[in-house]
C-alpha cells in the first residue's frame, strides 16, 4: 500500500517542481494596463525592457528596473504619456538577451526597447534592433562604439571614453602622478573597454605604466596581483572593475598597505563600494554623471522617492534608467504618436533635457553629450573632488 501511495506522490511532486521551474525560468512581467493606441490626448506606448535580472549581475538589473518602474509611475501619473513596460530577463547572456529582444520586437505594439544591461549584450541586440527598425536605448552600456551600431541605437549612459579621461586628468593634476599601475577585468567587454581607454589616456599623458594586471569576474583573491603592484610603487592605480570586484580589490589593497588613490570607471561608481569596503574605499576617484548628494531639488526628490519605495539608496544605474524613461516619454510626446520611426526622429532631437543626471542631449550618433562630475570617496562618503 505504502509503495502504491508513494509513487504517484513522487511523480506529482516532480511535476510540480518542473512546473515551478518553468515558471521562474523565463520570467516576463507586464506592468500597467492598456494598448498602444492614441486615446484622446494621452499617448499610450508599450516599451520593452531587457535587463539582467538573474545571475551574478542581478544587482544591476534590479537597480535598473527599479529606476524604470519609479519613472513609469510618475510619468503615467502626469497623464501626458501612458507607458507600459514589458520586462524580460537576459541573465547577462548574449543569447538570452537576443531571444528576449526578438520576442519583444515581434510584438508590433512595442514601440521601443530599453536595455540590455551589458555592452556585450548590446553588441548582439543592437544590430538586430537596427534591422527591425525599432529604437533601442541602453541605460548602462558604456563601452565604445555602441551608438555607432546604427541609427536606431541610442544610449543615455555616459561612455567610459568620456568619463575616464576626465577623472584621470584630475587625479594626475592633484597628486602630481608619474607612475601608474593598471588593473582590469579581462573577461568583460565593459571593463576591457575601460582598460583600453585608461591605457590610451595614460600613454597620451606621458605617464609611466609600471605594470598591467588582470583578474576575472567573481574572483575573491587579488593578493597576488596587488602584492606585485605594491612592489612597483605606483603613484596611482587605474582600476577598470565593476563595483563588486572593485570594492574587494580596494579592501585587500589597503590591508596590504597600498594607500595610493584609485581611479575607477563607471562600473566602480556605486555607494555599494563604501558598503562593502568600508574605510578602505577612501581614495577612490571616479567621474560620474550621477551624484546622489547633489544639492538639486530634483535629485533629492528622486532619492527620497527611491528610498521610500525600495528601501535602499539609488545608484547611477537606477538614476540612468529613471532618466532614460523620461527621455523616452519626452520623445514620445514630441513624436505625437507611438510610432517606431517617428520616435527615433524625436529622440535625435532631444536637447538639453533637464533630468536628475543634468542637462542631456544626443549627438548625431545617438550618443551622450554631457559634463561629468569628478568625485572622490573621503571618510566613507562621495565628495566632489577639488
Amino acid at each position: 500500500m505504502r509503495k502504491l501511495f508513494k509513487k504517484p506522490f513522487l511523480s506529482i511532486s516532480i511535476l510540480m517542481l518542473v512546473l515551478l521551474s518553468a515558471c521562474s525560468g523565463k520570467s516576463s512581467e507586464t506592468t500597467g494596463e492598456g494598448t498602444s493606441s492614441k486615446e484622446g490626448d494621452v499617448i499610450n506606448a508599450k516599451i520593452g525592457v531587457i535587463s539582467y535580472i538573474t545571475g551574478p549581475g542581478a544587482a544591476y538589473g534590479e537597480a535598473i528596473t527599479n529606476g524604470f518602474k519609479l519613472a513609469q509611475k510618475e510619468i503615467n501619473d502626469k497623464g501626458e504619456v501612458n507607458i507600459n513596460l514589458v520586462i524580460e530577463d537576459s541573465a547577462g547572456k548574449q543569447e538570452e538577451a537576443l531571444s528576449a529582444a526578438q520576442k519583444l520586437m515581434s510584438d508590433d505594439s512595442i514601440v521601443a526597447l530599453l536595455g540590455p544591461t551589458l555592452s556585450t549584450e548590446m553588441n548582439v541586440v543592437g544590430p538586430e534592433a537596427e534591422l527591425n527598425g525599432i529604437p533601442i536605448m541602453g541605460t548602462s552600456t558604456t563601452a565604445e562604439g555602441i551608438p555607432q551600431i546604427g541609427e536606431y541605437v541610442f544610449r543615455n549612459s555616459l561612455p567610459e571614453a568620456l568619463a575616464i579621461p576626465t577623472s584621470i586628468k584630475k587625479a594626475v593634476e592633484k597628486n602630481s602622478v608619474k607612475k601608474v599601475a593598471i588593473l582590469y577585468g579581462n573577461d568583460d567587454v565593459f571593463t576591457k573597454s575601460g582598460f583600453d581607454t585608461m591605457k590610451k589616456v595614460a600613454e597620451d599623458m606621458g605617464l609611466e605604466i609600471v605594470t598591467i594586471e588582470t583578474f576575472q569576474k567573481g574572483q575573491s583573491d587579488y593578493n597576488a596581483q596587488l602584492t606585485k603592484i605594491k612592489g612597483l610603487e605606483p603613484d596611482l592605480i587605474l582600476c577598470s572593475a565593476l563595483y563588486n570586484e572593485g570594492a574587494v580589490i580596494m579592501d585587500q589593497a589597503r590591508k596590504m598597505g597600498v594607500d595610493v588613490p584609485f581611479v575607477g570607471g563607471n562600473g566602480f561608481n556605486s555607494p555599494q563600494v563604501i558598503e562593502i569596503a568600508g574605510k578602505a574605499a577612501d581614495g577612490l576617484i571616479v567621474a560620474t554623471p550621477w551624484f546622489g548628494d547633489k544639492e538639486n531639488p530634483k535629485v533629492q526628490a528622486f532619492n527620497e522617492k527611491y528610498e521610500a519605495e525600495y528601501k535602499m539608496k539609488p545608484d547611477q544605474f537606477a538614476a540612468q534608467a529613471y532618466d532614460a524613461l523620461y527621455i523616452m516619454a519626452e520623445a514620445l510626446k514630441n513624436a505625437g504618436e507611438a510610432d517606431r520611426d517617428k520616435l527615433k526622429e524625436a529622440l535625435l532631437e532631444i536637447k538639453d533635457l533637464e533630468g536628475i543626471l543634468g542637462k542631456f542631449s544626443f549627438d548625431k550618433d545617438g550618443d551622450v553629450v554631457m559634463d561629468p562630475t569628478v568625485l572622490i570617496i573621503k571618510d566613507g562618503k562621495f565628495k566632489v573632488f577639488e
Partner: protein
Amino acid sequence: MLLEQLINGITLGSIYAIVALGFTLVFGVLGIINMAHGEIFMFGAFIGVIITSTLGLPLWIAFLAAIIVTGILGYMLERVALRPLRGKQGVSHLAPLISTIGASILLENLSHHLFGAGNHPFRNAFAEISFQIGSITIYLVQILIFVISVILMIVLSYWLLKTKAGKALRATAENIETASILGVNTKRIIILTVVIASAMGGIAGILVGMAFNSVNPQMGLSMGLKGLAIIILGGMGNVRGAMAGGLILGLSETLIVAYGDSGYRDAVAFITIIVILLLRPQGLFGQKTTAAGR
C-alpha cells in the same frame, strides 16, 4: 616581495586544500563527485557573515553555526539527492553526479534570494590582526588558515587509519555489501561522511570570508571546480593528495601572477595539472589499481 607572494600562495593553497578534502572524502567512500560541495562551502561563508557582521556575535559562534548549518545541508543532500539513487537497479552511475549538480544550482539560487547578488563584507576584529615585518604585512588569519588546513589533514588521516569509525568508513569505501554483511552500519557511515565533508566546507567558507573579505553566491562554483581539479591532481580519494594538490595549485597560481602575466593565471595552473597527470595518470598520491585506495 617573494616572501609575500609565497604567503599569498600558501594561504590560497590551504583554502583549496580544505575544499578538496571535503571532495575527496565523499569521493573516497561513495565514489561520487559531489558538485554541490562548492555551494555548501558558500553557505558556510554566508553563515559566517550573518553571525559576525549582521548579528555581531563572536567568531567561535560563527564557526559553530557554520559547521552545524553546513552539516545539516550535507545530511539533506544525502537524504534527498544521493540516497534515493543508491543501490537501485537501472540507475546510471552518472545519476548522483547530476543530482548533486541540481542541488548546487538550487543552493546557489537560494542564496541569491536569501542574501542578494552582491558581495558581502566580512567584518571582524580578528580578521584585522596583523604583524608587520619590514614592509611585509602578515595577517593572523593567513597563518590560521594554514594551521587549520594542516590540522584537518592530520586529524582526518588519523581518524581514517586508526579509529574504529574510520576503519568502518574505509571498509564501506572498499565494498558496501561486504561491509554491511560484516556488521558495519553503512547507512550511518555514509551520512557521517557527507556531513563531515560538508562541515569542512563550511569551515573553509568562513576562512575564505575572513581572508579575502568577499562573500557572494557565485564563489562556490569556481572554488568547486578548483577543488575537483585538485583531487584529480592529488589522486582521487587521497587525503595527503588533496593537501599537496591544493598547495601546488595555490602556489602556482600566485607565482604566475608574480613573475608572469596575470592573464594566464588559470591557464598555466591547469596546464601544470595536465602535465602532472600525463606523467602520473593516477594523480600524485593515487594508487594504480584501485580508485579508492588510501
